[in-house]
């Protein structure tokens, strides 16, 4: 237990540090973009957030596969812990995407590929969470969630391709792909993604630890009941 805490502490410190470095780079290192101005800086953390949202989904998928293969609860805990963190990040992606769209294109929403795929992932996450809340037996809940997590994740790459194609047919929609990336921008983006990934793992570890504590509590209660009856 103590060893795990050390890794967790290092992870937390590291993620905060890299996050602050990324923040600094976004505002002081990255150059000002020509057409959009300062508002363009939203791009770095917005993309990093979208990446974590997708990665979280992938981990939920892995957790589902692991659970179906082994029936070991640890995989299911991994799955729904990642879903919780991932949902937060995808929501953040959508909101900040809208905050970028408004000054950039004049409208809060646009069917631009990344926003659209984030919306799709958000709906899938929400469906996953609703499913988990709606099943009566915990064992079934884990099984059903695993199956849904797998099926849902499999459709995400397909959605990505379909949406990208769907959107390239309408050239009047300005895509963020049209932005030329200077080297300093690429560095900032890379560090932002690294920062968000570290924060994701830190939050994931904490969420899993919470669940392990809950399991410990439940076991203690059962033991108590058995002792007193």
């Amino acid at each position, binding site marked *: 237990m103590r060893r795990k805490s050390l890794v967790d502490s290092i992870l937390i410190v590291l993620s905060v540090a890299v996050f602050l470095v990324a923040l600094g780079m976004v505002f002081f290192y990255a150059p000002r973009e020509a057409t959009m101005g300062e508002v363009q800086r939203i791009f770095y953390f917005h993309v990093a957030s979208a990446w974590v949202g997708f990665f979280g989904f992938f981990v939920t998928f892995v957790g589902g596969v692991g659970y179906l293969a082994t029936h070991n609860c640890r995989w299911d805990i991994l799955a729904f812990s990642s879903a919780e963190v991932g949902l937060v990040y995808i929501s953040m992606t959508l*909101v900040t995407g809208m905050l970028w769209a408004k000054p950039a294109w004049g409208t809060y929403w646009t069917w631009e590929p990344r926003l659209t795929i984030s919306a799709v992932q958000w709906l899938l996450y929400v469906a996953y969470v609703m499913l988990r809340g709606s099943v009566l037996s915990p064992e079934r809940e884990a099984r059903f969630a695993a199956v849904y997590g797998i099926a849902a994740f499999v459709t995400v790459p397909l959605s990505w391709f379909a949406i990208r194609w769907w959107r390239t047919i309408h050239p009047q929609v300005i895509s963020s792909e049209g932005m030329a990336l200077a080297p300093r921008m690429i560095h900032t983006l890379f560090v932002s993604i690294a920062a968000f990934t570290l924060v994701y793992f830190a939050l994931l570890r904490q969420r899993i*630890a919470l669940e392990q504590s809950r399991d410990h509590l439940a076991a203690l209660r059962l033991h108590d009941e058995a002792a007193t009856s």
Partner: protein
Amino acid sequence: MPIYLLVAYIIFCVTPLGLAFSIAARRRKVEREIAALE
């Protein structure tokens, strides 16, 4: 214009913190109950 940038970055900083606090608060509650039983 800059207001969108500001609000966005406030969200980027506050949201993970909020989640971290939520997890920590829930964990503290559970730890307290464990301590009560032990």
